[in-house]
């Protein structure tokens, strides 16, 4: 037997840490328009390459090119731009409100606005999303009132969740937005269950699951793929790869494989990657996946390639683990800038309109914020009653909870 050298543990490292020069030269970006648009019933084996490429519609000049363009009218695109702008302004104000102590916690979407905003427009109103904490765009693009969101964030007496949940852990059945769990991954499997239920019931509604790059390592991700592929559940399974999981770069979750989308190949699930900073591309892919689901063709796995331009949450300072310059070096640009550029290029938008829209939206967000704050902020103003803490654990309050509520004096 040959002598063997000592083994050693290989621990992946990101290309760039604080102090390093950001370097995305390894990151291969196909040209816009380059990736084909297969029929929705394509054999997953024939479209294997799509998990290693990136579907892109907007090119550097702001033109919409290739087979994935044209799913949206220019009016719809203007609305899309407004949604993204709303989300960004909303985020900025809420981050600030958190810093001012008006609430305990906040999570923003900076740089990722296109994904949920565009995806939402490819679904029907009665479809159901199973989001993570970074898809508030689904609510904004779905017309959910900003004040309601803020009431939740402030845990005031008008909070639809009665102050029970951490800020931004929204829930709105009416808006196709499943109650957010703080436990990563769990909702991915539930989305498959919901979709199975729709199929069992002979319904036409579909589900969309959402998960982060880091969270694909969780068990629920596997269970979701197993169940979705076995029962051909009508579900779109979205991975938002924003390159980071708190301080951990995506290579720790991704390991040796080329992409997260490729995970779907082990299950025979059609798996694609899309430029997550390209509103048009995300919408087109969402449309394709939802048509597949609705036609009974089963699940689609979608990796949205994007970059988390801000900190993980209001508790996080990313300068401790990644180079400050990394965000600026991110090669897929900013989703708002790119859509704006496109709309200007096609003559549907101008700098003036943009400035006006920015002001108008800021106004609207401020108005909503004033309204919410006039009710209350965390610990100030009108708060949910402590009595309410005991309600809703069960439909009917059992005797031991009644006793505890009484003991607490409510």
């Amino acid at each position, binding site marked *: 037997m040959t002598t063997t050298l000592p083994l050693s543990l290989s621990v992946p490292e990101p290309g760039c840490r604080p102090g390093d020069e950001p370097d995305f030269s390894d990151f291969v970006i196909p040209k816009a328009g380059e990736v084909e648009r297969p029929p929705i019933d394509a054999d997953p084996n024939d479209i294997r390459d799509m998990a290693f490429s990136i579907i892109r519609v907007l090119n550097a000049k702001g033109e919409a090119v290739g087979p994935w363009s044209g799913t949206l009218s220019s009016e719809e695109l203007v609305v899309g731009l407004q949604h993204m702008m709303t989300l960004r302004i909303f985020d900025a104000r809420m981050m600030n409100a958190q810093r001012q102590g008006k609430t305990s916690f906040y999570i923003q979407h900076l740089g990722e606005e296109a994904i949920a905003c565009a995806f939402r427009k490819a679904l029907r109103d009665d479809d*159901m999303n*199973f989001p993570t904490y970074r898809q508030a765009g689904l609510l904004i693009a779905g017309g959910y009132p900003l004040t309601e969101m803020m009431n939740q964030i402030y845990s005031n007496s008008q909070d*639809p*969740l*009665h102050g*029970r*949940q951490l800020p931004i*852990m929204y*829930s*709105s*059945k009416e808006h196709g937005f*499943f*109650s957010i*769990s703080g*436990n990563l991954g*769990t909702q991915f*499997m*539930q*989305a*498959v*269950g*919901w*979709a*199975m*239920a*729709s*199929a*069992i*019931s002979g319904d036409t509604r579909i*589900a969309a699951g959402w998960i982060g790059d880091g969270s694909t390592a969780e*068990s*629920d991700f*596997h*269970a*979701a793929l*197993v*169940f979705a592929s*076995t029962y051909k559940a009508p579900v779109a399974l979205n991975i938002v790869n924003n390159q980071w999981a708190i301080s951990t770069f995506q290579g720790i979750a991704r390991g040796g494989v080329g992409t997260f989308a490729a995970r779907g190949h082990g299950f025979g699930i059609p798996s694609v990657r899309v430029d997550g900073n390209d509103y048009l591309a995300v919408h087109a892919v969402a449309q394709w996946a939802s048509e597949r689901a609705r036609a009974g063709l089963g699940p689609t796995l979608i990796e949205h390639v994007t970059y988390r331009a801000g900190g993980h949450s209001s508790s996080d300072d990313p300068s401790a683990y990644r180079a400050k310059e990394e965000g600026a070096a991110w090669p897929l640009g900013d989703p708002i800038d790119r859509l704006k550029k496109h709309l200007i290029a096609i003559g549907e938008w101008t700098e003036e309109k943009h400035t006006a829209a920015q002001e108008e939206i800021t106004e609207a967000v401020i108005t909503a914020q004033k309204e919410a704050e006039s009710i209350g902020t965390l610990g100030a103003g009108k708060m949910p009653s402590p009595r309410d803490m005991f309600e*809703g*654990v*069960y*439909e009917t309050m*059992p*005797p*031991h909870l009644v006793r505890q509520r009484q003991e607490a004096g409510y």
Partner: protein
Amino acid sequence: MTQMTMIEAIRDAHDVAMGRDERVVVFGEDVGYFGGVFRCTAGLQTKYGKTRCFDTPISELGIVGAGVGMAAYGLHPVIEIQFADYVYPAIDQIASEAARLRYRSAGDFTCPLVIRMPTGGGIFGGQTHSQSPEAFFTHVAGLKTVMPSNPQDAKGLLLAAIEDPDPVIFLEPKRLYNGPFDGHHEKPIVPWKKHELGDVKDGYYSTELGKAAIRRAGDDVTILAYGTMVYVAEAAVEEAGVDAEIIDLRTLLPLDLDTIQESVKKTGRCLVLHEATKTSGFGAELMSQVQESCFYHLEAPIVRVTGWDTPYPHAQEWDYFPGPGRVLDALHQMMES
């Protein structure tokens, strides 16, 4: 009325529920074509079709997670975990998700889900076919936990659980599936066909969750038991010749504290009995509630007879199992103090 085993009663409850309500769907490992390793779902796939009763991949997480998603959609899933010992991979979906969905969404989404599992020892199943994990579930706000001890209750409680608007953990003492077991493993069991509690009403009925049953009225000591231990208690009481009141809790949460209190205030003595390991077992909660509510009526310390604080052993099963001998000793000791 039909004479049924507990397995048949459970199967019948599924059948009745599926017949009455299209939203009831049944699934789990080996649950579909084969009808479950204990045959509790046999025949349902044939009768209701593959989309209402089906086999699943071996993923307890996936089974419960699918159940949560389906329940949120509006179905009423009834799912089987093949053995309670295999529920751990699903604990996150149960404790963090099913149990909290109504609360965290303020009723926007709910989770009418029944999770059934064969539970408990006495079948030489070793560490992974013998566990009694009820204490875990009773510590999670938002869950209800039920354990029937006979065919009549099994059917009625399962129907009530399926109709319940919230998640219910339904623990089935597998040692009782075919007949009550008094803890004397060397003696043959009495089949349910010969037992009055094996007389099961036909068609629909339900047994309210949260209500205990007094299996034997008595004045000297109260025994709190559930599942297999109800019969162990009966055997021990008979041998001891003590006038014990035996309460079969049936539902562990919500607990029927009224019935318990009334009994302990009368008897002044209380023995708590369960198969699970002792430390932080559900017996601790029972003792605590009795102590809290009946302190001034207690004439002797409340006593626990439980499984030991070891993993469930194979060869030493009958030394581990809280059999009539140990209960008898405890009763004698209590009556003396």
